[in-house]
């Protein structure tokens, strides 16, 4: 194909262009012509098409996401907010934390191992780009039915990809989720969270300013992988019957990324960069236009200088390539020699590919010919914005209340409990998490299956951070507004359960097609709920990610807002673990149980969904969180009650250290009886154990703080005994742990 230059575009305005094949709508193409005052060159068309894709431009979600700004609570902790590669918060002692979740859903369905691997790689580079050392990752994952044939293809590949990449980077994997539901068949969700730490003064931004400063591309060479991945994979569903666009999943090289991390941190330590951006979705198109747009606006790039793995790549392909493990830095010419020396030490390829210029245009040449001449802001930020139609879903009018079996004796307690804790969503996840390194770096204070992951930040002061991710997609399906709030409240509760104070929020919003008005309504309600709750709790949203088009044909996934909450703990040695540590402790449930099984795992086990999500009692949740923090020295253990209710929590807390418990659930304070007591998933509850000598103090404090306090038993023995139903721990363990190995080998 002959090189299409700006000059040719100006003189041959009527050349037919494949804008539709690149995923652009007709009005979008027309708008590009208006912006440029001519037809775009093929390189410009490539850039606009990837940058204006749903994945990069947030064109369907923008009008809703702005609520996070409009309703933002005042926060002294927020150092860098939404819009940069990742938000940054102050945790005290001069430390700043950056954290973010991203999705890599579509590539992971096509090629599970590489899709998941490069998902980890991408989020880690986002964190690194802020100037931070990445210190931990977490991976919330969702799959189709556990016993489905395709799940046996997708799950092992994704888990191996997460582990294969993350383990090789030396980042402890400290938590996440593994959830199965029929709607995720064909649409697995791979969300990846990374957290990083830096000193305040080391924060870096993605900006290009200072005329004459150099644009340096460093890291891996550019290849043909992932070309068009953004527009093809993330913006179209896999509807059958359409002409197949061969999807192009990126291929990861974790060793290259590990070396790039060490190299970049050394470069940051010597303060050698003016601005920096990683190359992820939309590759060089994104990095150059965003850097220029956020800076003074002018930049010239010589595209033929880009080191190539595949010398046959056209300029359009070089601009669109999503080859992994690449970074783009803006540096002052005087610092180039030192920069190159560090790259050389780590065997990292670095090439000057352009410079910051006066003016407001991004100009890209290829072998001396001008092939791109655009105002960078129009590529990076002025993409289309859609206010898509929304309608309350019809299914909400057809929901039925649950009708579940009576629990009327010790035999039914035992059989229902064992069935629940062996079900794939509640069963022990070691088969997955044992493929991840949770120890590397030697600062992992808590890791899965604990309620949160916790990392020591400072070995001298014992300052640390806790991170939790949560979603309850069935509640979001029943009530997306409250579902989002419930997910965030659960995440906050998890943080406080471990002894840390919630500080900031990130999110990864996974939905079906925004072109479906019912899906769009779910999305809008979710964002509204989240923004409202953040304002009410005074927690800033530091960033996030939207993944649309998670649907096959007309069936969308359950609306799945994954909420990540970051907490701070002044002294990590005081953290509370979930396992019952010894015999003879009093077991107490904090918070009340309600008679509602809608959306619960127990109802799911019986093939039911129910009709309404719980209404969050935010004031009660805040009182509970405050009590957890205040009473923390009194707890011997603490475990959040969520999926699987008290039954699951008791199972996990007893099996952790193999210490049994004897539980009496008096019907008096449990509307719905023993069934609700064991299996309801009422939010705002925590299971704690307390030394008998601290029991009265805890009860007094709980009463004073108006947190319901229910003693339900004592620890000890080698069985879990509930209202006379005896389940030996060995039997409990077998039921809880054999499910995943049986399914996945």
């Amino acid at each position: 194909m002959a090189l299409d230059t700006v000059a040719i575009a100006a003189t041959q305005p009527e050349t037919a262009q494949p804008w539709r094949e690149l995923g652009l709508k007709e009005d979008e193409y027309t708008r590009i012509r208006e912006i440029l005052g001519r037809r775009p060159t093929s390189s410009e068309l490539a850039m606009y098409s990837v940058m204006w894709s749903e994945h990069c431009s947030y064109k369907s979600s923008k009008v809703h996401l702005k609520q996070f700004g409009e309703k933002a609570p005042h926060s002294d902790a927020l150092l860098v907010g939404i819009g940069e590669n990742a938000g940054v918060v102050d945790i005290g002692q001069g430390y700043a934390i950056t954290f973010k979740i991203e999705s890599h859903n579509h590539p992971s369905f096509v090629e599970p191992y590489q899709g998941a691997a490069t998902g980890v790689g991408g989020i880690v580079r986002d964190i690194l780009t802020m100037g931070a050392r990445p210190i931990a990752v977490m991976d919330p994952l969702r799959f189709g039915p556990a016993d489905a044939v395709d799940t046996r293809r997708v799950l092992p590949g994704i888990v191996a990809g997460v582990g294969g990449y993350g383990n090789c980077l030396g980042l402890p994997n400290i938590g996440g989720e593994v959830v199965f539901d029929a709607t995720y068949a064909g649409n697995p969700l791979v969300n990846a969270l990374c957290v990083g730490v830096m000193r305040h003064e080391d924060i870096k931004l993605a900006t290009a300013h200072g005329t004459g400063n150099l644009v340096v591309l460093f890291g891996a060479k550019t290849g043909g992988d992932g070309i068009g991945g953004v527009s093809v994979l993330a913006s179209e569903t896999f509807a059958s019957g359409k002409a197949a666009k061969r999807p192009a999943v990126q291929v990861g090289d974790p060793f290259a990324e590990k070396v790039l991390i060490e190299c970049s941190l050394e470069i940051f330590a010597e303060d050698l960069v003016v601005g920096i951006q990683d190359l992820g979705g939309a590759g060089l198109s994104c990095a150059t236009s965003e850097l220029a747009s956020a800076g003074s606006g002018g930049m010239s790039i010589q595209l033929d200088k880009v080191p190539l793995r595949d010398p046959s790549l056209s300029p359009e392909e070089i601009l669109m390539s999503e080859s992994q493990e690449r970074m783009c830095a803006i540096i002052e010419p005087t610092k180039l020699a030192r920069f190159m020396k560090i790259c050389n030490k780590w065997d990292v390829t670095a090439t000057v590919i352009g410079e910051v210029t006066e003016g407001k245009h991004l100009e890209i040449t290829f072998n001396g010919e001008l092939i791109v001449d655009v105002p960078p802001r129009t590529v990076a930020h002025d993409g289309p914005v859609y206010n898509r139609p929304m309608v309350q879903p019809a299914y909400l009018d057809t929901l039925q209340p649950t009708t579940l079996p009576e629990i009327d004796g010790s035999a039914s307690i035992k059989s229902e409990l064992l069935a629940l804790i062996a079900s794939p969503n509640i069963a022990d996840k070691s088969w997955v998490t044992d493929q991840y390194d949770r120890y590397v770096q030697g600062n992992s204070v808590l890791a899965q299956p604990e309620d949160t992951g916790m990392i020591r930040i400072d070995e001298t002061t014992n300052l640390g951070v806790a991170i939790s991710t949560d979603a309850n997609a069935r509640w979001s399906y029943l009530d997306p507004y409250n579902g989002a709030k419930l997910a965030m409240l659960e995440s906050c509760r998890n943080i406080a359960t471990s002894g840390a104070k919630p500080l900031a929020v990130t999110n990864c919003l996974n939905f079906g097609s925004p072109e479906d008005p019912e899906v769009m309504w779910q999305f809008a309600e979710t964002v509204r709920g989240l923004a409202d709750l953040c304002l009410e709790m005074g927690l800033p949203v530091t960033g996030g990610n939207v993944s649309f088009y998670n649907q096959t044909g007309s069936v969308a996934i359950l609306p799945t807002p994954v909420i990540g909450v970051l907490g701070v703990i002044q002294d990590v040695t005081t953290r509370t673990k979930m396992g019952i540590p010894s015999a003879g402790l009093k077991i107490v449930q904090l918070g009340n149980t309600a008679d509602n099984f809608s959306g619960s795992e127990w109802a799911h086990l019986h093939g039911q969904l129910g009709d309404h999500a719980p209404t969050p009692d935010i004031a009660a949740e805040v009182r509970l969180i405050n009590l957890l923090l205040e009473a923390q020295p009194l707890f011997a253990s603490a475990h959040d009650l969520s999926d699987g209710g008290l039954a699951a929590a008791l199972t996990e807390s007893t099996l952790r250290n193999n210490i049994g418990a004897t539980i009496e659930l008096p019907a008096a304070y449990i509307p719905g009886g023993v069934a609700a007591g064991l299996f309801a998933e009422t939010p705002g509850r925590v299971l704690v154990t307390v030394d008998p000598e601290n029991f009265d103090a805890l009860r007094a404090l709980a009463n004073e703080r108006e947190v319901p306090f229910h003693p339900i038993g004592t620890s000890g023995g080698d069985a879990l005994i509930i209202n006379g139903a005896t389940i030996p721990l060995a039997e409990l363990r077998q039921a809880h742990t054999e499910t995943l190995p049986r399914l996945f080998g």
Partner: protein
Amino acid sequence: MRIGVVTFPGSLDDSSALRAIRLAGGQPVPLFHASDDLKEVEAVVLPGGFSYGDYLRCGAISRFAPIMSSIIVAAEHGFPVLGICNGFQILCESHLLPGALTRNQGLHFVCTDQPLIIENTSTPWTSGYTKGDRLVIPIKNGEGSFQASAETLNQLESEGRVVLRYADSNPNGSKNDIAGISNARGNVVGVMPHPEQAIEFLTGPSVDGLAFFTSILHSLVGR
């Protein structure tokens, strides 16, 4: 007491090994693969990780690093070397230790708190233990299955050179449940488990790994 820790490209547990030496009371000294300068350390640790990505056989490239040429010569003269996980693999590739570490039997990466038995306390890295001590130390690897010829296994067993053995269950199919071995002289030890990740109750399953690092300090003092 200066103890070195080598950073290869792709080393991951180097910072943890440096911390372990510090907590044991030694002076940790970072060493870089590209230099042959041992910086007057009195012993060296080759840490865990995926040096050079381990895309070739694990450790196969690292053994040619300039620092390894110094370490190999020194080790042959009795200089104490501890290889942990990837470090063990590098020692096998360097022929300082016999045998090879191959893909785990289950074909998965395995991270777990592994029960172990101390078999040999005559090496400078294990002198602080008592033979038969039961330890719980994390393992985390994809290629930790120790394999050797029957002749080599016989030799290792008969000479008491099996330093550490998996207890309760064998996580990866290693021959004779072998988790760690030494050379004939005892100064070079390779172990698959990560003692540097079992040095604090806060972050590890136990503190059972700390004695690897206190042992070497005592051995060097008593020398």
